[in-house]
């Protein structure tokens, strides 16, 4: 970064202002400050590796100043970059402060140069990539692809053990039936209720509840007990529903039942 004499500096300053003005015209075309810096860097007409970051900072600041004069609103990131470059410029020009622990001006400048070079390299790579023969533009795939028929074969498996276990499962269900057999001595309230609903229509007079017991249930004591209990419970249900009246003369006397006529 050879610094310049005063006269030369003035000349470059004028040139930079002219360049800045030209850039402002195409401001919309830039993708942010780095893009703009890259364009500015290219005007130095040197290899990006030998770019003068100091000169670049000056160019950029001139650009921002010119924009200010022309009352052009610059996006915030352009201004942030301007502030940072002004800081960088001062770092590069002033002798390093030994108390400062931050990165040196040279380090910052080197990184900026790296960023610009990398961006430039990626742009060139992108251009090379797009210049390649592209599928559908220069190179073509099969126009009539023949569909590959997907034959999905499902193979079902079962082992003998599966089969036997399945059968065992079913048969075990059968083996439960003895419990069902036991239940032939049980009459449920629902069953009794079902019977009584049909019979009650004929019971205008007080009738013994025991006479409602189904045939064949009065001999076997187990069955009789179950049927009696079921019918008693059913008759309570019918009373609750308002279909019958129930009475008992005294404790352990026969329970009598009759249709409730006075209802409605």
């Amino acid at each position, binding site marked *: 970064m050879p610094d310049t004499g005063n006269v030369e500096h003035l000349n470059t300053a004028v040139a930079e202002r002219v360049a800045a003005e030209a850039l402002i015209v195409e401001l919309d075309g830039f993708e942010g400050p780095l893009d703009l810096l890259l364009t500015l860097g290219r005007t130095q007409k040197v290899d990006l590796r030998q770019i003068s970051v100091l000169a670049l900072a000056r160019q950029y600041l001139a650009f921002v100043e010119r924009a200010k004069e022309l009352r052009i609103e610059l996006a915030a990131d352009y201004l942030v970059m301007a502030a940072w470059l002004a800081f960088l410029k001062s770092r590069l020009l002033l002798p390093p402060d030994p108390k400062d622990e931050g990165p040196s001006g040279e380090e910052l400048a080197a990184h900026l140069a790296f960023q610009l070079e990398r961006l430039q390299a990626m742009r060139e790579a992108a251009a090379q990539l797009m210049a390649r023969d592209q599928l559908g533009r220069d190179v073509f795939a099969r126009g009539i692809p023949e569909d590959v028929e997907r034959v999905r074969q499902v193979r*079902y498996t079962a082992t003998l053990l599966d*089969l036997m276990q399945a059968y*065992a499962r*079913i048969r075990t269900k059968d083996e439960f039936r003895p*419990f069902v057999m036991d239940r032939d001595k049980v009459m449920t309230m629902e069953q009794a209720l079902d019977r009584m609903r049909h019979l009650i229509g004929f019971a205008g007079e007080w009738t013994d509840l025991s006479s409602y017991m189904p045939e064949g249930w009065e001999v076997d004591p187990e069955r009789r007990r179950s049927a009696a209990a079921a019918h008693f419970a059913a008759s309570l249900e019918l009373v609750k529903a308002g279909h019958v009246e129930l009475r008992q003369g005294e404790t352990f006397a026969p329970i009598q039942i009759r249709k409730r006529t006075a209802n409605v």
Partner: protein
Amino acid sequence: MSDIMENPPQERLFEAPPLAEQERMVEAILFASAEPVTVAELNARMPHGCEAEHALEELRYRYEGRGVRVVKVGEAWAIRTAPDLGHLMQKETVETRKLSRAAIETLAIVAYHQPVTRAEIEEIRGVSVSRGTVDQLLELEWIRFGRRRMTPGRPVTYVVTQTFLDHFGLESARDLPGLKELRAAGLLDNRPPPGREVEADAQPEMFDED
């Protein structure tokens, strides 16, 4: 392309490409086109002075015996898979799946009680047997139709097949272990899941014909 077409033949500025080059062109065009291409179209797309017909013949000859062929489709030409390789255009994927519980139970009932009608299977399982389940077993060729039952409605019966016996490594369905053996093998110890009611009248008189 259009420039080339507009040039009348007598104004030829360039020699037509050599035949080998024309053949390459026909090859590329036939390959990339979404539809069969007529000779007229080929000529229109190839440089001036080309003779697609001739190049096409060469190309067709070149592909003889190859994996693909140059074939005529109506008035147009296309590249197509050689007929003997059509089977390669299938992609077979084999999926192994466990037979569903309904299917394995139905199969077990057929195996132990054959010949058995669908109504009987339903009675034993306590639930209806879906058409799909029976169809699946028929498709697997593990069961087949037996003789019709000589009862009202003449229902069809199901029996197990040789394929079934082969698959399960059985000489005959009679080799299937009986209930006693199943019990001895500890296979009868499972209890039905709680809460599953067994209806009293699901108890049919079974297998009266066996």
